[in-house]
């Protein structure tokens, strides 16, 4: 140990340490990566694809066509990837219940296995974004400060500064993100569902997407100043100032002005 202690001052020490650190990271990655890859659709089996195809023909082909190539007003699903299916079906947006300005989220119609099968089938039609790994959407590994900077440049204009949602034109809207799972948030960014634009790897790297998830994770903890009033900004604050503030104060004024019994 003495020898080691003496070499700590060697000027090559940082290099050695760096190499060691790299080795360690590599080893850790080797251990951890396969576990997270389990969730990835890479593991899709021919069986799964077949189940997915049956489900597709029964539930989706009416609109998207038996070949999933779509038609006027209905998008083709060739090349949209598993992520798009997992998002659209997993959030209940698809199958569509009725026509409207946009498809609303609702309780999912299929269970996880069925969704995975559908995703596997659609992914087999053409290459597209896959479902992210657990590590890619783990907010605790992200940097919320960078996430906030990215969120407000790329997302806040539609989804509001902290993801409370907002209005788009002609009755469309950007949904609230507080209840959306990190996986679905990630998938929405890579696939650009409905009005939402696409944010691919070049626009927002997967680390940056994880930073955004880290920022959104913080929003579940409430406001430091008390009730958040929906985080909707000055309009709801003004409404509460009138209802609660002026309500209580005018009530008190009426009490002061009234004759005592």
């Amino acid at each position, binding site marked *: 140990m003495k020898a080691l202690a003496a070499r700590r001052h060697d000027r090559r020490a940082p290099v050695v340490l760096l190499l060691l650190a790299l080795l360690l990271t590599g080893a850790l990655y080797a251990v951890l990566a396969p576990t997270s890859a389990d969730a990835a659709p890479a593991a899709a089996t021919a069986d799964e694809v077949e189940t997915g195809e049956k489900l597709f023909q029964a539930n989706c082909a009416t609109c998207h066509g038996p070949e999933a190539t779509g038609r006027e007003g209905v998008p083709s699903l060739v090349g949209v990837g598993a992520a798009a299916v997992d998002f659209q079906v997993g959030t209940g947006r698809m199958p569509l219940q009725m026509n409207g300005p946009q498809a609303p989220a609702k309780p999912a119609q299929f269970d996880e296995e069925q969704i995975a099968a559908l995703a596997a089938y659609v992914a087999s039609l053409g290459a597209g974004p896959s479902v992210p790994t657990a590590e890619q959407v783990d907010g605790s590994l992200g940097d919320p400060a960078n996430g906030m900077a990215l969120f407000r440049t790329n997302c806040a204009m539609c989804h509001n500064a902290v993801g409370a949602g*907002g209005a788009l034109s002609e009755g469309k809207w950007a949904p609230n993100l507080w209840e959306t799972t990190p996986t679905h948030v990630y998938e929405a960014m890579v696939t650009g569902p409905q009005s939402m634009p696409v944010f691919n790897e070049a626009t927002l790297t997967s680390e940056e997407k994880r930073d955004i998830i880290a920022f959104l994770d913080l929003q579940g903890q409430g406001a430091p100043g008390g009730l958040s009033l929906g985080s909707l900004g000055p309009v709801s604050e003004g409404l509460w100032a009138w209802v609660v503030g002026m309500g209580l104060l005018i009530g008190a004024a009426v009490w002061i002005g009234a004759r005592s019994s």
Partner: protein
Amino acid sequence: MSMTHGHGHDGQDAPEQNGTAGSDVALREGEDAPEKFPNPGFGPHRPRRADVDPRADKRAERQVVALFALSVLGTIGFIVAYFAVPPGDTIASMRTSNLALGLGLAFALLGIGLAAVHWAKSLMNDHEKAEDRHAQRSTDQTRAEAVQVLRDGVQDSGIGRRGVLKGALVSSLALFPLTIALPLIGEVGEDWNVSKFKRTLWAKNKKLTIDPSGRPIKAADVTIGSVVHVIPEGLDESEAPLDEKAKAVVLLVRMDPRDIKSEQGEGWSYDGIVAFSKICTHVGCPVALYEQQTHHLLCPCHQSTFDVADSAKVVFGPAKRPLPQLPITVDDEGYLVAQSDFHEPIGPSFWERLR
């Protein structure tokens, strides 16, 4: 003198004053006002419970004391909270600290307030009293005296006789504020060079980079349906980065080239990639809500809607002009670069915009 035109003389003997009645226009004498009921005078005084029942009186007093005591408890609670519940590092602890301090303060204040009001309402003498009013106008004699006083002053100063002196006084008083106004107005607007509104950092071959990371963008990396918020390369090195950013931000969109109906200039886009100023032509909000299916771009401030596929023409809302388009192309390495600066001033209109 009394009112000369009729809308009922005031039944309660208003403080009528000399010279205030009548009118400044040629009003016709009205007919006599209808007769009115007489004021019945004060109604009977109803005693309160505390006035007649000594127990009610004692009870009210105890309530007042209790409210004052509540205030003291609130203050003590505040002091305890100050030391015992610091804001800490988590949102929950901040919220607890704020709540504890705030409730302590609120009780300390409301206790005093409610106690004082309750005291006044239930225990203090509640017999109403009347006080006479007097007309605001001074009497004719006072007015005459006031006028005389002023005349005397003018006389003493001799200002009426000395015209030149009066002129000198007025001009010196009128001119001296310039000593404050001139440097203020001269300096307050920096160099007053408002033509800066018309130029941005964009120039030929300036790379388009991602906001805020500053990564350059390869055309091949932008997928259809993407939107990228763009700043010019080297923005941070510029003299006033925020001022430049406020003018230079650009929204880059890629759509199917077949979807593009028109552009503001021939060859200003690159393979379905178009770039428009992000600053609204209405009052300057960043326009950023891009709906990729309709190619509409919505401003969240006043809801002007622009059609990106059609030269960013206005399709709804209070803006008149399209968003200026930034002509772009790619360099040898495939990175997106500007062909030039915008061909017109970006942002909201101003008077000399086209000059």
